[in-house]
């Protein structure tokens, strides 16, 4: 009998209240801060090149796309996206898919130009904490089969 009571007491106390603990791991740290946003342009050898635009923050996907559509500026790089009067891009982000509605037709861009859009979008997505395996769907203003393709960036694997 003498040994039962301590066991009972332990049992009783054990269930009572929130017990203090040591530091415990609770998952991955959040991310998303950045000195600027990375845009992708094309160099003279028809290769995609990242270009850090020091905006002081990462910003959103539409902001990055706006900057991309605005052009490379004075840097020896060029863009293969035709300039457009409207810069508005509609972005909807799902768990494994980012869907863009760009104010362009398929004729306004070359395949490299599409890669520029996809890489820039994915870059922001990844830097904001998103998965690198996320697919990107670029929908153009005029109907075309290219609108349905799920794309990835060749530089971000």
């Amino acid at each position, binding site marked *: 009998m003498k040994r039962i009571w301590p066991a009972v007491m332990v049992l*009783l106390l054990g*269930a009572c209240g*929130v017990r203090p603990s*040591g530091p415990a791991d609770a998952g991955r*740290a959040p991310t998303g801060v950045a000195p600027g946003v990375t845009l992708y342009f094309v160099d003279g050898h028809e290769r995609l090149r990242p270009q850090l635009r020091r905006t002081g923050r990462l910003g959103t996907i539409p902001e990055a796309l706006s900057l991309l559509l605005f052009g490379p500026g004075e840097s020896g790089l060029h863009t293969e996206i035709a300039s457009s009067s409207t810069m508005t891009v509609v972005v909807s982000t799902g768990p494994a898919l980012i869907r863009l509605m760009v104010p362009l037709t398929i004729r306004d861009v070359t395949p490299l130009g599409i890669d520029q859009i996809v890489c820039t979008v994915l870059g922001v997505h990844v830097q904001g904490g998103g998965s690198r395996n996320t697919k990107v769907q670029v929908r153009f203003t005029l109907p075309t089969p290219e609108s349905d393709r799920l794309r990835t960036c060749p530089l971000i694997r």
Partner: protein
Amino acid sequence: MTGRLWPRGLRARLLLTFVLVTVLGAAAAAWSSAGSASTALVTSTQRRLTESIAGQIGAITPQLTYPPDQDALDRLRAAVGPDTLVTYRNLRSADGADTGLVTAALRAAVRTRNRLVTQRISAGGRPWLLVGIPIEITGPDGARTPSGIEVYAVRDLTGVDRQIDGLAWSAAGTAALALPPAVLLALLAARSVLRPVRELRDTARRLAAGDLAARSPPQGADELAELTVTINEMAESVQTSMATMRRLQADARRFAADVSHELRTPLSTLTAVVEVLATATAGMEADARESAKLAITETHRLVRLVEDLMEVSRFDAGTARLRPEEVDVAGAVRDCLRARGWLDRVDLAAPEEVLLRLDRRRLDVIVANLVGNALRHGGPPVRVAVSVSPEQVRIEVTDGGPGLPEHVMPRVFDRFYKADAARARTPGSGLGLAIALENARLHGGDLTAGNTSGGGARFVLRLPRNLEDA
């Protein structure tokens, strides 16, 4: 723990054990489920808080300038909510007094691990959750580096604590609910176990009291039933051997009675003719005269022996009857002594008149035996003292002899017991004291043997004053 607190009755012990086991079991089950539920509650609350803070931070980080200035830190802190501390190198932004609870251990863990870290602490009597969040910079290629921004949030867990208390109370309640059915079950179990035990006890008592026909019917096929069967068998064998013994004893007694009865007819003839012989001895030669006297003496001895034997047989057969009448005890004792010519050899101390209902002849037998023994075996002075109390009359016979040896005392009332071989040839039949004792008992009294402080033998006869007529 054993003596006072632990009850001695089987029922109470069964009850207590049963209730203890049940309630402890119920309490253990309730407590462990309450324990795991509370752990789950704490864990989920912790995860929810952490995820919500991390989500809030993740939502605002893309809008933060980097490297951050004080304004950026303030915005970040505001987005996370109150009781939050944000640091970046030498900059810090704090809100609420409770941010002081953030521990060094947590900070160290945040810096070294670069992962979300939580810690539960207790401060001011309340439980707190500390969440440490390092913010990382992820390159476009996914490479992560520490940004140097650290967010610490302090959250009150009192609500959770209260919920857990509720769980504990409901566990206690559940355990308490088990109590009445446990008591009920224990009583039922105790009864089912104790009933056969009680029956066995009653049977054993009856057996002990001499009712050898007592049995308990065995019920079921458990250990108690086996015990019952065993006890029944034991009682059976005891009964059988007792019956055999009684039969043998009765046979022996009947034989003694028959023998003494058969001896009486020839003894009648002998008794008649030895007196004729006695009156004729005058004309005999010396040796013939002695022979005749021996024959006479031995005949009278034989007669007394046979009479004593028959008396004992009547006691054994239970046919001895008391013939009580109103008797003056002192006078009867005096008459007894006078009739045998002992008055001048015995000191008699008796009150004037003690009236008592008793069998005069049997009292005479007892007194004559005791005084005769004292005169023969003890030494002078032989004293007879009659004394009276409200309950009984006491007749004490003492002598001035060597007294009864220790080894003789327990057997002094045995039949034919002779204290030593030298006394084997005494006029007594060897049944005198046995008959005296039986006569005392027939009166509802008692006869005891002992020694006086002076060393002589002392026999005490006690007779009740209110004799019920048998």
